[in-house]
């Protein structure tokens, strides 16, 4: 491991094919919040200089200077955050799908891909924020004109930073706010020499956030176990038959909620459309049809579930009555 880092710049490029939703999500986080990081109130992390176009004080060339300096090796060390999917700039004869800043010599936008080529080799770590940047996401949907892809498709899954870190993927459409900030905090601790190499799975996701399925943390799981499925939105039972992919999707939002424990997906009545997954969106469409893989399991659970529900109703009726003897003395 390299020497502990005392000060680091975070260079955030939102100019992939995205919606800036991951940047906006980042501003919703409270565990920690962006101001906790920027104001340095968390112990054991380097001083952070944060450069994100949505929150930057600087404009235009003044803002771009940080990125040019990093490419020129003047600004070091830095962490690179990429938001949005990476277009294929080679599928056309001229022009650009995505650009960021202006090339002074040609007067043309500098392609986002060129920025990745310039900055990734010099970065201490590279983070892909949101499903567009991790795996391609919605903009890589079948029939798209841009040929776009995830960052690890572009750089290669085996890619390592100069400090030996793989690409760190934090999927979600958008990323769950605290999931993002928590990973950022982990990496800052690692940079400071306070934490070991970040544990990632085969799809380069932090293991402690993405190893469980939505279903394993879903508060409608009890309904599933009892074979209680609704055919109607807005009802309380399990919504697998409405199109929920929770049983196979790796995501903690059902359990963690969206922010401050509030909101989410199946836990609050929204079908899981698999937005954290590499197969999103094509493998989950049409979203509002029951997932083919859930036909058998939801059928099989019916017999067991109904029997269990009946037995539980019996016991429940019993425990809804107080034990005998709880009344005023009759003397």
């Amino acid at each position: 491991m390299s020497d502990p880092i005392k000060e680091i710049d975070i260079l955030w490029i939102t100019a992939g094919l995205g919606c800036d939703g991951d940047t906006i999500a980042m501003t919703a986080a409270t565990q920690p919040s962006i101001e906790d990081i920027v104001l340095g109130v968390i112990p054991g992390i380097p001083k952070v200089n944060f450069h994100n176009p949505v929150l930057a004080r600087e404009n235009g060339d003044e803002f771009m200077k940080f990125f040019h300096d990093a490419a020129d090796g003047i600004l070091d060390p830095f962490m690179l955050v990429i938001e949005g999917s990476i277009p294929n700039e080679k599928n056309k004869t001229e022009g650009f799908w995505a650009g960021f800043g202006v090339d002074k010599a040609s007067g043309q936008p500098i392609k986002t891909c060129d920025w990745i080529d310039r900055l990734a080799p010099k970065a201490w770590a590279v983070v892909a924020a949101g499903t567009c940047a991790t795996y391609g996401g919605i903009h890589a949907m079948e029939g798209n004109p841009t040929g776009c892809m995830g960052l690890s498709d572009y750089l290669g899954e085996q890619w390592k930073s100069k400090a030996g870190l793989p690409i760190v993927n934090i999927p979600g459409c958008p990323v769950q706010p605290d999931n993002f900030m928590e990973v950022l905090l982990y990496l800052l601790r690692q940079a400071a020499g306070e934490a070991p190499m970040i544990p990632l799975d085969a799809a380069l996701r932090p293991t402690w956030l993405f190893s469980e399925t939505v279903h394993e943390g879903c508060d409608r799981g009890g309904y599933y176990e009892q074979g209680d499925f609704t055919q109607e939105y807005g009802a309380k039972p399990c919504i697998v038959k409405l199109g929920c992919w929770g049983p196979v999707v790796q995501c903690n939002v059902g359990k963690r909620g969206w922010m401050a424990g509030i909101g989410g997906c199946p836990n609050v009545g929204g079908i899981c459309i698999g937005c954290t997954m590499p197969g999103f969106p094509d493998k989950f469409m049409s979203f509002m049809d029951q997932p083919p893989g859930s036909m058998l399991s939801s059928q099989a659970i019916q017999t067991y579930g109904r029997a269990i529900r009946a037995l539980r109703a019996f016991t429940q009726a019993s425990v809804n009555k107080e034990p005998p003897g709880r009344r005023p003395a009759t003397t």
Partner: protein
Amino acid sequence: MKEKTEAPFSEKIVEMSWDPVTRIVGSLGIHTKIDFEKRRVVECYSTSSIFRGYSVFMRGKDPRDAHLITSRICGICGDNHATCGVYAQNMAFGVRPPRLAEWIINLGEAAEYMFDHNIFQDNLVGVDFCEQLVRETNPGLFATAEKTEAPHAAAHGFRTIADIMRALNPFTGAFYLEALQMSRLTREMFCLMEGRHAHPSTLYPGGVGTVPSVQVFNEYLVRLLRYIDFLKRCVPLHDDLFDFFYEALPGYEEVGRRRVMLGCMGSFQNPDVCDFRYETMRDWGRAMYVTPGIVIDGKLITTDLVDINLGMRILLGSSFYDDWQADEKFVTHDPLGNEIDQRHPWNQTTNPKPQKRDFAKNYTWVMSPRWFEKKSGDHLALDTGGGPLARFWVTALAGSVDIGYVKATGQSVKINLPKTANHGETEFEWKIPKWSNTLERDRARSYFQAYAAASALYFVEQALKDVYAGRTKVWSQFKVPEEAIGCGFHEAVRGMLSHHLVIRNKRIANYHPYPPTPWNASPRDSLGTPGPYEDAVTNSPIFEENGPDKFKGIDIMRTVRSFDPCLPCGVHMYVGNGKVIQTRHSPMFGAQVK
């Protein structure tokens, strides 16, 4: 109408560009020529450098998925797209959601306005008015601010205007930090109704998946009251700040001023009237709790959503696309028998053509939506006033909204807020301003937060009435028809939003969303008319004290940001970074990196 003409040569005309413009959502470049002798902007180009292609990849998909896909157009107001998509789906599928579902959507969207206007106003726009930037651009003005007492100090707690400016410094100012925190509270309210921000999980054609309960509305209400308490300081604070600019910099009303040409597509459905049928759209449009309409030169020329729809025209002229004039015509007539133009979104075909950026020819991925005014025969470059200005102007003139907490009077809108923890009952009155300019766009944004909060109080009451009465159904069954058309109209946070949908063989044959930013950020169209950013910046006076060598362009940045740019919206078709192509003999200061 302005022609695509060259600016007259002057030694003092300097090319200046900001690319990217930061503190907005998405990719935007502003390229200008400035006459430093006359202290005026003489030319302006607005450009964006990202293309994603929604209208292309949505073809052939299941129309039920449309709202879940189009939400991803925007990462800050994606829910506005999801909502508008659901409205279009409801029309196409012929389904009317239960009443309670509409209250839930109205509450979610109200929370979105509260959140988004709040974070944009005080964490993005506010920085342009903060101590650090005012000192860098107008040190003389800051000295005056130090000596100027804030008229509403008792309400907001900041004694001088300079104190307000200090409170807006990024990451250290007290009000900046408080606003950031409030933007989380309002997003929690949003998530109670729509599940997740910014891409909701619980909106569907036919209604919502949100499970209605006494608890969910109470959790919303207690947060709403905390936010209203905050607003009673926030609105007077901004009034003081903006009024100070008028007083301390005489002539500032000309900054970002353009002809009053405002469009609003209406917001907050009235579920007792709205059945989502095109045939009755005129009536349910007028029953919305923010009235749709178009204001030209201060006159309300229509409040009819059918008129607004029929007048939409999408022009090219400076955008990276091939024309669709000869392509398929999907819709020849609307359900009322009115003819639909080939340049209407229902008939648009998006044919992207990536190319070099050339300010003399094509320079952006944004197209040019215009509104065809029958009477004059003009294709008007309507703007949204950043959203709130148009919503207020139309609603005030129409005078039809009256829900107690909000009342439109014909020349103003009165907003009544109940007692909260630290403040008594408060009335705010938004009055029609003299100008459509930078400061009035910004001021309306503060007042509209109060409008949204007051409306939400009404919606919570209505929703609880339904829950108490046991009317808890929030979704209606529907079938996807073999063939259908639909349209949805809504107000995205930053202004008018429409979705146009054509279904054939139960699949999407054509889908075109028109968000506020294409209206505002559009380039010069085929008739030579510049887009609203370009128009508002051109001829705008410069008050910044710096000369060309240290120029920050603060007045231009304030103008552009007053429209609340949100380029992912513009760019679902395209946006590009720009650089001035025409060469001048004047020195190129704008190009240097500091």
